[in-house]
């Protein structure tokens, strides 16, 4: 399992311009735009730029953790080297976990580089307000969307299916999850509907851990994250087993 994990980590390191630096440039561009447009605006006690910045960081982990295993698996299916996984003496659940951990690793590495590269542009942002929650937020978000990425990667038969899910499911969920605005400010029923969006809770919990600001109770967000992590874990196990041992 560790060899598989190491291989998947090596894979994204091999194409680091695409996998690590591309998302960081995206965060930089968002910051540039929002920094100019929203200069001086506040959300509660929090500068709007800090609010958006922490949301973008959470989005970065989610996107990277999700796309790492999903694309690797769809590529493996298309090239045919999925057979390496099917022949290997590794239990299907270990294969899923190895991919999810590699996804988490990419999410964390990308986040660290992004922080180092961009935190200087956010005035007044220091160390996380709640360090323990911050570690939880990093770990849980990375693993949760890593597992979802594994499930999607095994589910998707081709790139079209994966792109469809990324574009029409994942991206809307991320963008409507409160990265750029507090969902509590949305008119009813959208503020209520947003609470059913799992991504909202990841962003909310991450932002709370970093800045102390939260749209809803961070404990509720934590419980929702744990609940969805369990659901994604089960989905990952079922789809991994189905694709490793063929009937």
């Amino acid at each position, binding site marked *: 399992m*560790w*060899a*598989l994990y*190491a*291989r998947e980590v*090596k*894979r994204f390191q*091999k*194409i680091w311009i695409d996998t690590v630096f591309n998302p960081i440039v995206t965060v930089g561009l968002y910051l540039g735009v929002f920094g100019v447009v929203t200069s001086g605006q506040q959300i509660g006690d929090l500068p709007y730029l800090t609010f958006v910045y922490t949301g973008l960081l959470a989005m970065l982990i989610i996107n990277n953790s999700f796309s790492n295993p999903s694309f690797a698996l769809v*590529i493996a299916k298309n*090239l*045919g*080297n999925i*057979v*390496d996984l*099917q*022949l*290997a*003496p*590794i*239990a299907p659940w270990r294969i899923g976990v190895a991919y999810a951990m590699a996804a988490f690793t990419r999410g964390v590495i990308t986040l660290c580089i992004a922080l180092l590269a961009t935190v200087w542009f956010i005035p007044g942002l220091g160390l996380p307000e709640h360090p323990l929650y911050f570690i939880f937020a990093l770990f849980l978000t990375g693993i949760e969307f890593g597992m979802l990425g594994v499930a999607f990667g095994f589910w998707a038969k081709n790139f079209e299916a994966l792109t469809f899910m990324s574009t029409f499911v994942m991206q809307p969920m991320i963008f409507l999850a409160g990265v750029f605005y507090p969902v509590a400010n949305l008119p009813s029923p959208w503020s209520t509907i947003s609470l059913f969006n799992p991504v909202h809770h990841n962003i909310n919990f991450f932002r709370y851990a970093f800045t102390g600001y939260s749209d809803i109770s961070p404990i509720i967000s934590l419980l929702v994250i744990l609940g969805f992590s369990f659901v994604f874990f089960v989905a990952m196990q079922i789809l991994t087993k189905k694709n490793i*041992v*063929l*009937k």
Partner: protein
Amino acid sequence: MLLEVDILGMFPLRINNVSKIFKNSKGQEFKAVDGISLNIEPGKIYGLLGPNGAGKSTLINMISGLLLPNQGGIELFGLDVVKDSNKTKQLIGVVPQEIVVEMAFTVEEVLYYFSGMYGVPRHERKARIKAVLEDLDLADKMHERARNLSGGMKRRLMVAKAILHRPKLLILDEPTAGVDVSLRQRIWALIRRLNAEGTTILFTTHYLEEAEQLCEYIALVDHGHLIKSGKLKDIQQEFSKNSIHFELFDRTAAPLTGVSEVGVEYEYPITSDLATDMAKLTSHYNHNLKSIRSEAASLEHIFLKLTNSGLSS
């Protein structure tokens, strides 16, 4: 950790009444493998032969743990391939028919991570990789990206992946399909050497000459059924009984009564005794005779006879 299994005295492979049914797009069932039973003894080279679509690859995929049988059971060294799949997968090395390589990695990286997945200890990996690549004449390509290798080199890389963890049973699905003559010879030499070191070999091939060169035992499969299996020499003797085989330069020559065509060869049943019938054929065909023999039948002859005659139906 490498798996420790006591495999002494165990049959490397026991296939017991195995069937595999597939459904086509219209929902119709199709039996790709139908009630095959076969035992493979340790330290032998087995050839699994049969025409296209005979069920060879399906059988190999079930042995490798890629497909679940609908009926029957398969044991590798006494372990069930379904219940103990992680253990059985570690005991075998498989070279699939399709050439597939990692796009991003170098040859060394491909082998390093692959051997890790099979439990080869980290401190042993580099030395094993070096040795295997030297064996397969790929040592100078170690740091080359796998995707940049030629077709033959990629085929060798697939063999390297299958043997790095030193499997007890090596399964090769058409290992020399589409490779040039010199590489084929090199792969044959490697198969012989691995076998001499104690590895049991099972391979499928379309090249009957290859099976004749390498195999001590063969199993012939057609339409999902096992139609013949056993020691190649015994089977050849069985099919040579009471017949003379010969080839002609001019195939349009008038045939002698009793002569039948089997592939590129002709067969003549011995009616009185060998010397008299040989003389009869020699005098009839005279200078048109390209070759004549009464020893063991060629595998091609056996193959055609079994797959074209009543047995396949």
